[in-house]
């Protein structure tokens, strides 16, 4: 089977490619350079994985989906125009995949509820391992409990948001995509994106304030900022 003509390239190529720009790296990756692919994978894996983790709430599914995103990216890289924003493109692929998962999940929940006697619609219905929002983060021991509590509350609030709002929040405020990139990703106008981001932010604020009103008192806020 055809492998793309880049098998002879070693992983050590990534070191030589570290000084190249992302566009050059993409061209090399498209030509089959394993080093360039490795650099792109290492650069975007944490972000894509984090996005799936927050959107889907399932660690195993997030890992599988991250892998699937990169398979899709490198299989369709030939058609990608390097003049465009690669970040916007790869997050669009991730968002489409996440949306497929969310739709499929809603259908599976229905089947299980109807026929298999599994988890009901009120449960999370996650397929994989339970997700710890503060998992894998190196934090000071004294602060870890409080930080974990905050992370759980935020993840709980995120899970209560609509997927669209959750996505724009994560893409805008965690991945720092611009309004223009979001508009390209979502296929709508910049004004619409601004409106969606604003509504999502207000929704998150409302949810957090409803569940943890003490965090929004001035002294606690100051303590939280100091901890963060």
């Amino acid at each position, binding site marked *: *089977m*055809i*492998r*793309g*003509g880049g098998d002879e390239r070693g992983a050590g190529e990534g070191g030589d490619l570290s000084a190249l720009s992302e566009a*050059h790296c993409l*061209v*090399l990756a498209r*030509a089959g*350079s*394993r080093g360039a692919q*490795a650099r792109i*994978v290492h650069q975007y*894996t*944490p972000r894509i994985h*984090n996005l799936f983790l927050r959107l889907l709430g399932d660690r195993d599914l997030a*890992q599988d*989906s*991250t*892998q*699937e995103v*990169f*398979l899709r990216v*490198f*299989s*369709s890289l*030939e058609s990608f125009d390097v003049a465009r924003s690669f970040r916007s493109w790869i997050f669009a692929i991730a968002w489409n995949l996440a949306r*497929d*998962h969310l739709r499929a999940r809603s*259908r599976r929940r229905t089947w299980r509820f109807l*026929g298999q006697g599994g988890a009901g619609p009120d449960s999370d219905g996650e397929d994989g391992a339970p997700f710890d929002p*503060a*998992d*894998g*983060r190196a934090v000071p021991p004294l602060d870890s409990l409080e*930080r974990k509590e*905050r*992370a759980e*509350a*935020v*993840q709980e609030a995120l899970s209560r948001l609509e997927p669209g709002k959750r996505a724009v*929040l*994560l893409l805008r*405020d*965690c991945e720092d995509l611009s*309004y223009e990139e979001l508009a390209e990703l979502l296929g709508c106008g910049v004004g619409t994106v*601004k*409106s969606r981001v*604003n509504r999502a*932010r*207000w929704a*998150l*604020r409302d949810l*957090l*304030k409803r569940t943890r009103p003490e*965090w*929004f008192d001035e002294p606690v*806020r100051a303590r*939280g*900022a100091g901890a963060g």
Partner: protein
Amino acid sequence: MNCKHCARRLSEYIDGTLDRESRARFDEHLGSCSSCSAGLREMEEALRLLREAASGPAPAGLADGILLALASTPPRATGVPTILPGVPTILPGNPTILPGVPTILPGDPTILPGVPTILPGDPTILPGNPTILPGNPRGRRSGGPWTGFAAAAAIVLALLAGLLAWQGRPVARRVAELESEVSGMRGRWEAEKAELAVALERASDELAAARSDADRAGAALAAEATRRERLEEAVARLESAARAEADRAALVADDLRVESERAASLESELALLRDRALRRGAVDGAIAAGASAQPEPVVLRRRGGRLELETRGHPHVFIPRLFALARDESDPEIASLALDSLEGILGFGGPPSGGGTEPDPVEPGVGPVKWVRRGVAVFATAAVPRGAQVEETQARESPRERRLHDLETVWRQAAGTEG
């Protein structure tokens, strides 16, 4: 700006995408509205919590696993969600085949007994493909009330398999075309790879050259900075010296001003003294003029290179004057002429040798002096005793002092006689 408008555009305010005018209006409203300012604070806090919670590293080994999967996975064509038109997608992550049909999970290709196996990740189904076999003996997934659905799914899949088999020949041709296309792509990739290698090498050379230029420019810049620093120090020293010189010049100027004032004072004093001296000189001149009103008894003048002597006035006046001139040896010519004149007047010879005009012959003789007037001049002659003739000869030959002595003797005699 009102609270509703503020709430609608609060995100843009936080992101800093508002224009200056809108931001100013926002600031003005937030300064006066506690509700909106609290909303701003709370939204910023919520976003801070979100960023804190939603960041984290990927699981260890995930990226390496992805790379491994990439290395073991052939490149796939994108946008091929369906195998045939009208046939639902069979891909991992989209397990639904038909509405109302149970889920086909990835990794579990067996659906029901008697239904062909469809391996995930290999959507291409060729004629005679051994992955689609009837009567797969592997176990059941479910039974009981789902038997009807399973039967329906089996029928659908059987139809699908038939369709695929029917379409197998074109698919084989398509596969051959795709492989040919892929080999062409590989050629293009190789060419592009070679071009990129050359471009990379060229870029490396340019980068090295640029770094070298930058190093040189940096060194030149440092040298220039050092030179400039030295120049600034020199300028500072010169400025200091100039200030000292200016101070000294100011002191000298003060001294000069004092000196010039003193000089002016001295000039004024000198002018007074000159004025006084002039007045005194005028008085002295008048006195001298008064003194010199008497006629000069002996007048000396040169005519045609010869020195002439003219006597005026009485012999008692000009003869002592002639004696004085004869004794004065500062000018030998005058003294000699005065002596000769005395000898001529006092009877030792003819008329004075320096005379301007030839006088009348005068008889040498004895007795008092005789006076001959010619014009304004009076020539005197003295009567010399006869016995003095010898003495005259002797006198002419005697030294100068002797002659003067003789002449004074004669003059005293004559003057005494006359007197």
